[in-house]
């Protein structure tokens, strides 16, 4: 469907977009950025592959995208409940003076936003075709 030039450009650009998404998400506590922005960057890398190569190349990711969403929500809940059991109140910081909690929650939110955006795109992209 798409031409060779578009396919080659998408294949060359996607790894760098994914890498910059991982960087923005995991260094959000030091520099501008954060979980939401990193998640959107990760999703844009996968969506670029989907647009240029079709859904078949990433069909295993597209079929199991809801597990990422559930994993993110459950990890967020587990972090909060651990704070409640150990620290005394919900989402209490167990290790003060270290950015561990910010890093973990940033990566979890990045996974969740990535999964949500890709799920919405799969829904709207696969409306006309039989299987996506």
């Amino acid at each position, binding site marked *: 469907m798409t031409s060779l030039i578009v396919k080659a450009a998408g294949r060359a650009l996607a790894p760098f977009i994914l890498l910059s998404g991982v960087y923005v998400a995991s260094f959000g506590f030091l*520099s501008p950025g954060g979980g939401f922005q990193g998640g959107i960057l990760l999703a844009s890398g996968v969506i670029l592959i989907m647009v240029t190569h079709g859904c078949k190349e990433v069909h295993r990711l597209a079929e199991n995208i809801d597990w990422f969403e559930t994993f993110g929500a459950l990890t967020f809940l587990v972090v909060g409940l651990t704070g409640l059991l150990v620290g005394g109140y919900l989402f209490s910081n167990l290790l003060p003076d270290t950015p561990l909690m910010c890093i973990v929650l940033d990566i979890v939110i990045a996974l969740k*936003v990535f999964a*949500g955006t890709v799920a919405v795109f799969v829904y*709207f992209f696969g409306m006309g075709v039989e299987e996506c």
Partner: protein
Amino acid sequence: MLNGLNIGLMTILVGLYGMTRTKNSIKMIMCLGIMGSGLILLFVSIGYIPGGGAPIVGHSPEMVDPIPHTVMLTAIVIDLATTALGLALVYHLHQQYNTLDVTEYMGGED
């Protein structure tokens, strides 16, 4: 008086006017997005102080208020979620009734 507060207010009012006057459901969702953008501009402008830099420690001596930024980061994601859900519902309604006019869904005149 062209500052962020006034422009944000005007954008919210433009979205509100469009939302009350249109009958097309996709245009209604677009107006919801316009209202969200105006709200984001308004809140970020509320937190601005003259001469302030980015709210990062060690970046600048005086920094802007970071609380509206945090609230608006949440609002952007909620905007994304409501837009996606609304468009999915509009797609199903169009399959059912073959129209985008909201007055046709109820079967009444206006």
